[in-house]
């Protein structure tokens, strides 16, 4: 019924996926003309953001499982369909992607080398991310999963830092190996479902009805889990992230931490959990413990870093540990908190990565040993740094707190020990974040030098993020509202 109703509608979801793709192609056609490429990329991502905003405002509320659904035959011989489906969670992720991409484009404004390719890759990445967040056919999902991987690989290996080759290869190998398991599990599920019903299909909604034995379910779930856990990343599969985030170019780090990491957790929510409910139920306790281990391990490791970017990379892992913990709690409030935390973490840590890039541009260093006293030299930049750091350490009234407290409140209902342990992690989050703040903006100025404060372009990047951080901290209601129905459905069993 949903499908029929949405048929005459304008294909907004396809537009979200195809617009950046078109922008990327246009950028390549204009290679050699840097200014045009920049304008083109900005215009494209503005348009995508406009569409996402429109969907948020006009289609944010709806009855039933899906807010928007697009379905048409693609490769019918193998039962592969072109299915894009948007629920409340996808809506938030799409909005976050469109928003962060704007910042990434602005941040990449100063890239000098191979401008057209850089922007084309960024836009291709956006297209891939949109696809991951919207696809509801396994083949389609897998396709975008890999599509999002390739631009990031090139972004790191061409425009990255000193050890970019190694980092890019590590990133590529980890995620590729992970997704290989997913591919195998996917095909196995396809065969099992086809064998049972005679209908060979990759559409997730139909695969939900597959009857699996416990062993089958366990193995298939493990296959999907491999891809999602590596991408999330949970300890001990996280070392690719620290290297990749440290070496990636600024815009790449922003997309990687703000968006690409979320795809793993999103995959859990959208694909793995609904398809394999029994295996999920068995696995949740392990997932919770893994999340806690990750939370603490990363928080402790972060404390020991000198490179700001590496510290932030670890802080990302730590935060995502909390997100996964919320999912493992399998409780409405905790889930909504997790999803909100994904969004807020994307914004705050993304903004911090932007700031690190700006600091690097000005001082040519990312080492806390060589930084300090930025408050006196670049007060506006330092103010934003302070604001986002505080948001990241979970200060009430700023964005991350809203997500964190929901996760903790929800988790405590059924798993008080988890919540208490996670709360202890808050102290360590404060420890490394305060060390970061102290090392970067307080203290004596490392060198007497006059540094330029924020330019209008940089204001344009940071100010909306800052406003959003405060808004999400004080009034997250508009962003929670689309989640209620979706999360309740997913927790109840996830059948459409």
């Amino acid at each position: 019924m949903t499908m029929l109703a949405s048929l005459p509608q304008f294909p907004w979801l396809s537009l979200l996926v195809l617009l950046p793709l078109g922008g990327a192609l246009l950028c390549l056609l204009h290679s050699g003309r840097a200014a045009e490429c920049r304008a083109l990329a900005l215009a494209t991502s503005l348009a995508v953001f406009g569409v996402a905003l429109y969907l948020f405002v006009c289609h944010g509320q709806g009855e039933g499982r899906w807010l928007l659904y697009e379905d048409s035959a693609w490769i019918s011989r193998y039962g592969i369909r072109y299915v894009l489906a948007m629920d409340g969670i996808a809506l938030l992720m799409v909005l976050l992607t469109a928003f962060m991409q704007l910042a990434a484009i602005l941040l990449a404004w100063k890239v000098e080398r191979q401008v057209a390719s850089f922007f084309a890759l960024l836009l291709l990445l956006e297209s891939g991310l949109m696809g991951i967040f919207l696809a509801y056919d396994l083949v389609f999902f897998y396709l975008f999963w890999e599509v999002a991987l390739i631009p990031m690989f090139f972004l790191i290996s061409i425009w990255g830092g000193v050890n970019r080759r190694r980092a890019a290869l590590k990133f590529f190998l980890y995620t590729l190996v992970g997704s290989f398991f997913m591919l195998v599990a996917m095909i196995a599920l396809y065969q099992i479902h086809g064998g049972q019903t005679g209908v060979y299909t990759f559409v997730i909604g139909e695969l939900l009805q597959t009857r699996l034995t416990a062993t089958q379910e366990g193995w298939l779930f493990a296959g999907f889990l491999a891809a999602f856990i590596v991408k999330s990343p949970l300890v001990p599969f996280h070392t690719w992230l620290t290297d990749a985030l440290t070496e990636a170019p600024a815009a790449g780090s922003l997309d990687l931490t703000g968006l690409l990491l979320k795809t793993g957790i999103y995959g859990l929510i959208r694909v793995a959990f609904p398809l394999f409910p029994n295996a999920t139920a068995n696995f949740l306790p392990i997932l919770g413990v893994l999340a806690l281990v990750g939370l603490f391990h990363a928080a402790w490791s972060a404390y020991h870093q000198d490179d700001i970017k590496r510290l932030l990379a670890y802080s990302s892992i730590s935060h995502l540990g909390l997100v996964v913990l919320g999912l493992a709690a399998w409780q409405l409030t905790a889930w909504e908190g997790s999803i909100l935390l994904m969004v807020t973490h994307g914004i705050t840590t993304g903004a911090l990565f932007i700031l690190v890039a700006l600091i690097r541009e000005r001082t040519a260093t990312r080492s806390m040993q060589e930084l300090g006293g930025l408050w006196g030299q670049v007060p506006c930049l330092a103010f934003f740094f302070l604001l986002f750091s505080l948001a990241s350490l979970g200060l009430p009234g700023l964005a991350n707190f809203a997500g964190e407290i929901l996760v903790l409140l929800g988790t405590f209902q059924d798993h008080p020990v988890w919540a208490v342990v996670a709360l202890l992690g808050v102290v360590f989050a404060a420890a490394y974040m305060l060390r970061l703040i102290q090392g970067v903006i307080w203290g004596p100025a490392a060198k007497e030098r006059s540094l330029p404060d924020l330019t209008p372009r940089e204001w344009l990047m940071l100010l909306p993020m800052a406003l959003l951080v405060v808004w999400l901290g004080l009034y997250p209601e508009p962003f929670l509202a689309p989640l209620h129905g979706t999360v309740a459905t997913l927790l109840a069993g996830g059948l459409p």
Partner: protein
Amino acid sequence: MNHSLLFLIPLLPLFCAVINLLFGMRLPRLFAEVMAVTGVAGAFVLTLIFWGHAEGEGTRAVLFTWLNSGTLDVSFALNFDRLAAPMTLMVTGVATLIHLYAVGYMHEDDDYGRFFALLNLFVFAMLVIVLADNLLVLFLGWEGVGLCSYGLIGFWYRKLENAKAGTKAFLVTRVGDVFLGIALLWLFALTGTLSIDAINDQAAAIPSGVVIALSLLLLLGACGKSAQVPLMTWLADAMAGPTPVSALIHAATMVTAGVYLLCRFFPLVSLSAVAMTAITAIGALTAIYAATCAMAQREIKRVLAYSTMSQVGYMFMAVGAGTVAGAMFHLLTHAFFKAVLFMAAGCVIHLAGDENDIFKMGGLARRGPVELFWVFLAGAVCLAGLPLTGGFFSKDGILLALFTHPDPVYRVFWLVGVLTALLTAFYTFRLVYLVFAGDYRGAGHPHAIPLLMRWPLWPLALLGLAGGLLNLPAFVGGGERLHHWYGALAGREVSASHDVEWMLIALAAAIAAAGWLAAHWRYRSYRPPLENRASRFLLSGWQADALVDRLFVRPFAAMARFCSSGCDRTLLDGTLDGLARLVSSWASMLVQLTTGRLTTYLSAFAWGFLIVLGWFLIKLVNGGGH
């Protein structure tokens, strides 16, 4: 008047803080200063206007929904009730005077925008704590004051020690916040609500074991903010901040937030005798600990910081003894006289040429304006508890509550309280003598003291001296106004025979006098500080920092190093690199097959061809043709 206008009380300072933060440095200095003072003074006036709303059940105002998910529904809501109203009045009133003082204090500092913004933001956060209707809003203020404290302790950020002191304060208080957070989660899981009143109403239904645990968690949370043992190490270092900050945050308001929290949850906490005893014990321990430390301190502000901890310890004891009115009474008088002492200390430091060490002062009564000495003395006699001052009555009320408590163990706490009172009188007058008596021993050049740094001291000094009138005990003819104001919230009715009361009063007076006499005997003429092991032990605060360092900080750093280098670098990356090396060594063996020579490839091809043919042959032989 519209209830939601109540929000103006905290929002006015917030508004001024935001304006100062964003535009403070671009506006004329005068504007920023006026803005800062107006915000707080406006809140004070508003509190007076709204005073009537606090009577009875109080007034609740809801702004908008903050978080709504599942069964959770938290709004930004304020509750202006009888407990909150005096506290609000005190916070805004003292803050107004301290802001005025700060205008004078900061008149040479260039970074005034940030200073006043943070100070106003602090007042906002403090008011949020005081007025919060639910735990989450309270937590917002709770963390907010911590943030402002952090920012203001490290205000002169160019000296790394200041920034480090701020970080330490934030971290140690955050440890306490974790316990408060756990209590918050647990209370929500138990009662399904975060509203403080609703929780207190349902408290009786909670199993007693859980009540004990919850109360202890709340206590630990309070300990963090109020610098009580074991989370007390940050307060002395926090004196690195500007003096108005010490006066406002680290004496009058923020450090008493813990006491206020316990008073807020008194209906819950008082259900458990164990928890009450624990609260009293913590208070007693801190009181005596801090008093001993204060005796050996050399920096004027550190003496006052330790005395603050000690006095807050009294307030904890009062809560533990079951008298909310007594705790709040001491909280109010202490806020007045300790603010005076800090502000006067700021003037003293100015006079001594930015010298902090009391052993390098002396004779300041004659060097500076004479009124300074009188004001400082007014604060000192309150602190020492000389009869008829505000401090005397409030402290006496607490000792009486301890003495009359039915549980005999409270007699021990009472003894500790009495002993602490003796020590307090001693170190207070030690301070007075060392700073004001004798000849000047320092080398600094005095700075002029602006007018604005002088006159805000007077009202506070008078309030401190006359603070006893707030809650004058009945047997000396007082009306016990505060007690009656709180009504049902006031806690246990402390009743004793007049003889006991008179006896205790006489004892308190005698003790204060004894402390004074001891100090007089020891410090009337200058003697250099003792340099023995005991005084070093006390000077370092019982080596608490070293202990924390050894027990927590170093293991944590080692753990961090292990996680980062040991686990990630060596174990995980090392395993993977080893695997990669293994594969690449196989690969280099295989690569030798690729000689690049045509003949090798051709003969390999031929061998393969032979194998295929041989296979066909075998099949033919076996299968006998088609």
